[in-house]
């Protein structure tokens, strides 16, 4: 390799930093949506590279469903404190009370759909005009078509048929009042790219990404952690297994995978060997129909 050549991870990094700086340059009130998961942790890491020694030109915002993994919440708070950036947390539970929303019923009652309400309220409360998120195009088919700057109307809706052309590395952040833009700086990264980047830069992650013992329930071939949010039935098959998480969402709709991976190298080898996609293996919420994600996105889901 010539002296003036970047490898793929450095190229991806530079592209993402460029996008983050475009957000800073183009918007009045951006926010970075931070969940404590690996993708948003990677975003924070990239933001440090984009803006230090200055402060972030945006706060970190977490929409807490109340069903989050305690390990992820702890990590979220520690990271925000450690880097000295502002963290705003809003709770889906509060929105449910305030607006008398009806919660899903059933075994894996999920607050995924209700999350959208809290997110839109939070956007309105702070007047955010741009929300940075860690979604990637390799995750899912609908996402494969989404722009890096993705405009949402005042109801947070995405219109896949009316997307703006996005050329070169020129991002159009112009919007009308009330609209906002979702911004995806790591659109072009794959799951494996994220893991390789985390390894290269020694980025710290919540412990649930590494293999640990946990009490799980087996449901349709997936392993779901037992918790106060899941209603167990006497016939449920419960056991303690060595597992890790490949994605971190709600405890009710994120499945664990059996694993012995104690280090990041182990995780990467397992991911290379795996035959199931990230979302397919770990998300219970995508299974409803082929178009599940597209429908939820249109309704303002991230």
């Amino acid at each position, binding site marked *: 390799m*010539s002296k*003036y*050549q*970047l*490898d*793929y991870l*450095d*190229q*991806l*990094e*530079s592209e993402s*930093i*460029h996008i983050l*700086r*475009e957000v*800073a*340059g183009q918007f009045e009130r951006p926010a970075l949506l931070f969940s404590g998961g690996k993708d948003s942790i990677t975003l924070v890491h990239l933001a440090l*590279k*984009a*803006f230090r*020694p*200055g*402060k972030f*030109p945006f706060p970190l915002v977490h929409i807490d469903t109340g069903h989050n993994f305690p390990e992820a919440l702890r990590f979220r708070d520690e990271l925000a404190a450690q880097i000295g950036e502002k963290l705003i947390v809003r709770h889906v539970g509060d929105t449910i009370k305030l607006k008398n929303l009806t919660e899903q019923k059933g075994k894996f009652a999920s607050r995924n759909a209700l999350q959208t309400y809290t997110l839109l309220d939070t956007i309105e409360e702070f007047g955010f005009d741009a929300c940075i998120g860690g979604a990637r*195009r*390799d995750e899912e*088919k*609908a996402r*494969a*078509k989404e722009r890096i700057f993705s*405009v949402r109307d005042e109801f947070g809706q995405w219109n*896949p*048929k009316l*997307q*703006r*052309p*996005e*050329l*070169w*590395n*020129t991002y*159009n952040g*112009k*919007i*009308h009042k009330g*609209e906002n833009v979702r911004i995806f700086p790591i*659109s*072009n990264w*794959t799951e*494996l*790219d994220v893991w390789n980047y985390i390894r290269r830069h020694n980025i710290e992650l919540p412990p649930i990404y590494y293999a640990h013992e946990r009490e799980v329930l087996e449901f349709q071939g997936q392993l779901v952690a037992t918790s106060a949010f899941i209603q167990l039935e006497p016939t449920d098959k419960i056991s303690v297994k060595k597992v890790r998480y490949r994605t971190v969402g709600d405890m009710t709709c994120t499945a664990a995978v059996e694993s012995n991976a104690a280090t990041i190298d182990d995780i990467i080898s397992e991911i290379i060997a*795996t*035959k*199931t*996609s990230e979302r*397919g*293996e770990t998300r219970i919420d995508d299974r409803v129909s*082929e*178009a599940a994600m*597209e429908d939820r996105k249109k309704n303002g889901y991230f």
Partner: protein
Amino acid sequence: MDILRFITAGSVDDGKSTLIGRLLYDSKSIMIDQLEAIGRQSKNREDGEIDLALLTDGLRAEREQGITIDVAYKYFSTPKRKFIIADAPGHIQYTRNMVTGASNADLAIILIDARNGVAEQTRRHSIIASLLKIPHVVVAINKMDLVDYSHDVYNNIVIDYAEVARNLGLKDVTYIPISALNGDNIVEKSDKYPWYEGESLLHILENTEVQNDINLTDGRFPVQYVIRPQTEDLHDYRGYAGKIISGVYRKGDKVVVQPSGIESSIAAIEKDGKEIDEAFAPQSVVLHLKDDIDISRGDTIVPTGIQPNVTNELEVLLCWMDNKPLVPGNKYLLQINSRTVRSSIREIQYKLNVNTLQKEEAPDKAGLNDVVKAVIKTAAPIAWDAYAALRSNGGAILIDETSCVTVGACMIQ
């Protein structure tokens, strides 16, 4: 390991989706659950075979109509390279989507159905590839199984296409016979083509040299954001954050700030909070200048040497992307890298027929998907390079201030 971005272009039914599905499948980028999902959908079809094309059609409307209507990005990698595919629709109605996909591509795969040969669409796709200056073109002659793997059929298409390539000035063109359906010459060379001396498609994709496409001679650094911590210990810190889009920057270099023309020199270069002596495209860095001058977003820091053009009038080839027509006199925002200025369309000199390259002189307007040569006047000067000479500083978008939508793509001439 580096990155190759490529676009696939073909007419409906040339086999584009099958080809992409094949590349993803054979490079093991498709997971079991995704295969099961397309298996379920394929069952609704009559033939019952797993339809690899279903992998690439993302949105439901597209699944229902069975066509690709927007650019979808797909990813796969081999130990040599990470690949980013911009899967763009080929129909004339979606020229703007193809232009979008082509804008970042290092390479274009132009698919030709061996039974049909070079068609009108083939010409159009090649014209777009040449307008957007995609550096490398691979002409994949598909469905060779349907023409008995005929060397003659292949040769005739190559001869026809060579003419197109010559007219367009396409420089790096490679030809390959394939069957996307059977996987011939996609990952491995197939023995059904003893007369074919080239490599497999994947081999070509892995080995096309793209590093040389980055200009490391003429430095351009558009300032995106100014970092000013304004804390006690960093009171005087003023760093210009941006991405080097071409060239190499070294500590101590004399520079000119464009469009103002003010001179200074580089006091320091920072990357990840550490000082470095030199940085190069496409790195994102922070520059510090020796003199305390007024620089903000939209300025370009350029080493002394060959300067960009600094003018407030531009001649552009423009692809119009909006339903409302472009009419001389219309005003738009023009955005080039981090700089945004007001602009107005002075005149439309001609409209280019994207199927034939014929020019229609002085049309009174341009419609959706039209490509025209136009003159644009900007309210303030901008620093630009000819798109053909420096792609990263020669492309601009037009934004309609009332709808906020991106309505045009300009290649500055």
